[in-house]
């Protein structure tokens, strides 16, 4: 039963990633695209956790944590750049 749930979840999250990617492509403004990237990395974390559940391996947790950290810093850096025109002041 869990295998079926994980399969359905894979389809849903992949669709979610596709929708975020659609927003990334059409914009229309720069913050919209940053928001889409932000959502895209959260979707990726979800995909990695599902992969870990499917393959029964706890190794993917580290990758998920790294993506969370780097994605967050990336979003902040991009926002700062749009706000100030500079990242490191």
């Amino acid at each position, binding site marked *: 039963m869990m295998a*079926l749930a994980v399969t359905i979840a894979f389809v849903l999250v992949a*669709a979610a990633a596709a929708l975020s990617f659609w927003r990334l492509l059409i914009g229309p403004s720069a913050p919209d695209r940053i928001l889409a990237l932000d959502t895209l990395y959260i979707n990726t974390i*979800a995909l990695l956790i599902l992969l870990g559940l499917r393959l029964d391996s706890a190794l993917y947790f580290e990758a998920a944590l790294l993506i969370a950290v780097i994605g967050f810093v990336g979003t902040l850096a991009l926002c700062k750049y749009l706000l100030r025109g500079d990242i490191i002041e």
Partner: protein
Amino acid sequence: MLEALLSLLILAGAIFTFIGSLGLARLPDFFTRLHAPTKATTLGVGSLLVASAIHFSTQGEGMSLHEVLVTLFLFITAPVSGHLLGKTGLHLRLPRLGRQDDEGPHPG
């Protein structure tokens, strides 16, 4: 029983993640779009992580609580990136749907 609970959590997580991205794709302006991912997606990934923690804790190799760390991290960072994105949107004066009694900030 446990499997049913896990399946439920996984499905709920996936559905919330999907709805978050759906909101991102179909809501009308930037500021409304901002709500979808910061909320729905956080809870979606949150319940997936809880499912994962329960699954690996019941595998017989002791507790596995480090998934809590990712959940915690996402719950702390999601509002921060949401706030900064909102600030950026205001700064760039993105078009916003609003009403007459709108008392929004007017950044210089």
